[in-house]
């Protein structure tokens, strides 16, 4: 049908041509109007008036404690900026500035290259200027063409609380960081971005929205006033976040942990709210704001005690005897092991050609399950574990959330390790491992590794008979789901009674945690983790019930000695603190 005849008429062709030339004339007319008739106006506008766009950083949201006290605040600092296109002799000016602020011109030049974004965009040269420096610059303003200063909000920590691992820190966005951000269009060079801890986790809440204002500047780059034809937009401060932390308790525990290495976590088991979290040794949270010298940084990185490590989510430790509640649960629920029959502990136990020792070489004599818990007898559990399979044990660990991330609301949590049948196969081969390994698991040693935050979740689940929500640091409405181990109610009764006995019995390993306060009841378990690299790690986990409230606690002291001897007494101090704050609140 290519032969269909063209039916366009001369008339149609003329109309179409007319339309084209009318459109061309409209465009030409408009250009004529702007370029010829209004030339003077635009010419002077281009020569003397330029519009400069200035961005104003939004202050980040504050971080508050559970009562609304400010933990992390903002504080305005002075920064020195340059408009590159307005500077006359860059090198000379850098030298002069270096003189006035007593800095090195090479540092200023380095900053200039780092933050440069364009000829007419303010580029940062230095920050944290003090009043003296500013007044010296002000006196010599005439020589410093194109140099300005500006105030920006920076992080500031007004309370007694340090908690650097929890708060995390912010970083200044440079080119590399900007490229690594998912929403890079929201950030400019020199902006702050949450890099670790809560600052990172809640970045979208905390960051706020940058404001923009437009200024008319004259040919010399001086601001003549706001550009009225363009709407400025005020910065929108970030949202505050309210944490579950209790400022006073946190400060108290931080003080207790000075000169100790390890972790203390305190929570409300019913809500999962963490009242206090200390990882020691720590560092001052303002280490990363202001000027961190290369030397400070190198020093803290090389410190053998690793203060930068957030031990409660990244430290992995053998759980030792604190797994014995899991052992009880497995034995009662999943095996036909008779828990009421006593077993004899002679101080060691021979299994195949290996001898497994009890922590007490003289032995505990005849013990039943409760007695074995109270004195933390290892031989009892060596004998009992033969009744169960590795995957039964594994399932119970997982049911209590051990060996898996707890979805705590700060980044970089690690998993720890709970081995199952497949894992042991892969690691040691089909015949390379025997039930002997299982004996180690019975007392929380061997390959087992857990993080303190998992242990906090574990103790919360015990304190609430399996119903506790996930542990968290920020008051939010929608928590992720937690594991909920389901045990018979008689099993719960048994485990909880045994944990009470650990504290209250005359020989209980946890007896030193008993603060003997009227109306306060304590449940707990100690653990002493053997550590091939040095002294044993001491564990105490448990909870206190006092005036209708429950407080759960996890204490881990690295290379400190036995759980009952070192960790339990610290627990007592903290339990007493609950009582005194509570009583204070009543008065």
């Amino acid at each position: 049908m290519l032969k269909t005849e063209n039916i366009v008429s001369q008339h149609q062709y003329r109309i179409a041509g007319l339309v084209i030339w009318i459109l061309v004339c409209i465009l030409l007319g408009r250009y004529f109007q702007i370029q010829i008739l209004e030339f003077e106006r635009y010419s002077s506008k281009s020569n003397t008036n330029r519009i400069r766009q200035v961005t104003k950083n939004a202050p980040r949201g504050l971080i508050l404690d559970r009562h609304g006290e400010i933990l992390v605040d903002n504080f305005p600092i002075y920064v020195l900026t340059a408009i590159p296109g307005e500077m006359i002799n860059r090198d000379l000016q850098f030298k002069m500035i270096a003189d006035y602020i007593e800095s090195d011109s090479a540092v200023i030049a380095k900053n200039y290259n780092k933050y440069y974004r364009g000829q007419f965009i303010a580029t940062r040269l230095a920050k944290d200027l003090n009043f003296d420096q500013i007044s010296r610059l002000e006196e010599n303003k005439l020589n410093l063409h194109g140099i300005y200063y500006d105030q920006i909000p920076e992080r500031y920590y007004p309370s007694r609380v340090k908690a650097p691992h929890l708060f995390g820190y912010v970083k200044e966005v440079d080119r590399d960081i900007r490229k690594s951000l998912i929403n890079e269009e929201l950030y400019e060079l020199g902006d702050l971005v949450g890099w670790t801890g809560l600052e990172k986790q809640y970045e979208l809440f905390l960051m706020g929205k940058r404001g923009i204002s437009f200024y008319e500047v004259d040919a010399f780059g001086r601001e003549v006033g706001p550009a009225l034809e363009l709407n400025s937009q005020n910065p929108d401060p970030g949202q505050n976040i309210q944490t579950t932390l209790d400022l006073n308790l946190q400060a108290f525990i931080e003080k207790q942990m000075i000169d100790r290495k390890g972790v203390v976590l305190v929570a409300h088991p019913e809500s999962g709210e963490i009242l206090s979290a200390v990882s020691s040794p720590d560092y001052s949270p303002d280490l990363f704001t202001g000027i961190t010298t290369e030397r400070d940084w190198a020093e803290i990185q090389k410190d053998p005690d690793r203060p930068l490590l957030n031990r409660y989510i990244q430290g992995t430790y053998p759980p030792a005897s604190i797994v014995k509640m899991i052992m009880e649960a497995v034995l009662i629920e999943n095996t036909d092991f008779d828990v009421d029959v006593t077993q004899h502990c002679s101080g060691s136990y021979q299994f195949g050609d290996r001898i497994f020792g009890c922590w007490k070489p003289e032995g505990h004599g005849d013990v039943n399950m409760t007695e074995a818990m109270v004195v933390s007898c290892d031989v009892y559990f060596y004998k009992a574990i033969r009744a169960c399979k590795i995957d039964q044990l594994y399932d119970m660990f997982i049911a209590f959330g051990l060996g898996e991330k707890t979805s705590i609301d700060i980044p970089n949590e690690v998993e720890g390790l709970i081995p199952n049948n497949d894992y042991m196969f892969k690691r040691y081969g089909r015949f390379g491992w025997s039930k002997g390994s299982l004996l180690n698991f019975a007392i929380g040693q061997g390959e087992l590794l857990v993080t303190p935050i998992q242990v906090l979740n574990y103790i919360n689940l015990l304190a609430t008979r399996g119903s506790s929500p996930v542990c968290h640091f920020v008051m939010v409405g929608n928590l992720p789901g937690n594991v909920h181990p389901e045990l018979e109610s008689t099993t719960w009764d048994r485990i909880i009674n045994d944990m009470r006995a650990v504290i209250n019995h005359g020989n209980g390993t946890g007896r030193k945690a008993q603060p003997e306060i009227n109306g306060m009841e304590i449940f707990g378990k100690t653990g002493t983790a053997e550590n091939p690299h040095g002294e044993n790690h001491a564990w105490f986990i448990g909870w206190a019930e006092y005036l209708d409230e429950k407080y759960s606690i996890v204490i881990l002291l690295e290379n400190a000695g036995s759980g009952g001897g070192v960790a339990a007494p610290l627990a007592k101090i903290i339990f007493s603190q609950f009582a005194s704050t509570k009583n204070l609140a009543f008065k």
Partner: protein
Amino acid sequence: MIHWKKIDLYDIPWRILIIAIILTLIGLLALKSISYHHTKTLQNPFYKQVIFLLPSIVLSVLILFLPTYAVHKYSFIIYGAGIVLVILPFLDSEHAGTHRWLNVGLPFAVQPSEFAKIFTVIALARYLSDHTLKMKRFSSIIVPFILVLVPSVIVLNQPDLGTAIIMFTPILPMLYWSGARPFYLFMILAPILSILTAFDTTLFAIWAIVMGSLIFIGQPKMSIGMSLFFGNIFLGLLSRPLWEMLKPYQQNRLITMLYPEKDPLGAAYQIIQSKTAIGSGGLLGKGWGAGTQTHLKFLPVQESDFILSVIGEELGFVTIAFILILFGYLINQILKYSFLSRDRFSSLVLIGIATILMSHVFVNTAMTVGLIPVKGLPFPFISAGGSFLMTSYIMIGLVMRLSIHYSD
């Protein structure tokens, strides 16, 4: 049917290609001026444009060897391929928040909607030349509309309103070319204008008067005329309350679909900067490479959407006038070939291409001087942009191919 061996080189309207190359050279001149500080090759719009230019010209010459009957025969297959092409970017990851671009493993992404524009015109030309429409009947234009709307709506969802409009526009002159009464075409456009003008009372009043007079001149039946007029007025009056009934986030979603690049500060800022640049250029311009507005980076997207502002500032009104008149001449030539063409298919493809080119020129130029809102559409041959340069030269090749026997 014409066999390519019979083509006489002197029959080919080379002037079309020469005009296109002249315009591209002017564009390169402007790109060279603003690329002064760029270093990396492919990020430099000047080099990128140079690299694309040669294959583009070769492509347009190769099209001369393409028999017209083949274009005609495979129009609908090409059209189908075009639809697939514009859907493909939705399967790729987003580029700058849109699905306009397709990553094909080259160092640059391609924009399939550019190519789909031509395919749509060809399919439409085929349909309108195969069916001698009873243009007195309104229903006969339904199929052509569907042909155009399918790719336009997909492109609108990428979202790319500018290209969707360009894709849609050719149907109006092409229907006119096929003998549709202008009054029917007006009836198609009327509801859109009624909705758009409804948000400004004065504008709506003017529109109501214009519409009333046009209906009076068009002289339809009394009942149709009345219902057309009041239907449109009703639609206009209804659109504002309907708009206000929407929740703010729904309004925002619509606005974002229509104006994906909308940035209330940005748009006003861009227009002011563009007008200042152009206005301060005056008759002869500030000189090549001497545009202060341009070089102080006050002017955004200089290499594509605002390339005319660069030319206006540095090379002045004379150059702008030269470009626009040359373009008017080019379009007029295409119209002439379309009129002289013996078969209807070629004639329709030519008017379609003329419309696409003219729409680009009008929207882009009008935007730089604040006549219409900012809409990211490039200026043919002059703006930097690989896919678009290539499609423009494909269109030039088609124009030359379809005009061969009627060159004077």
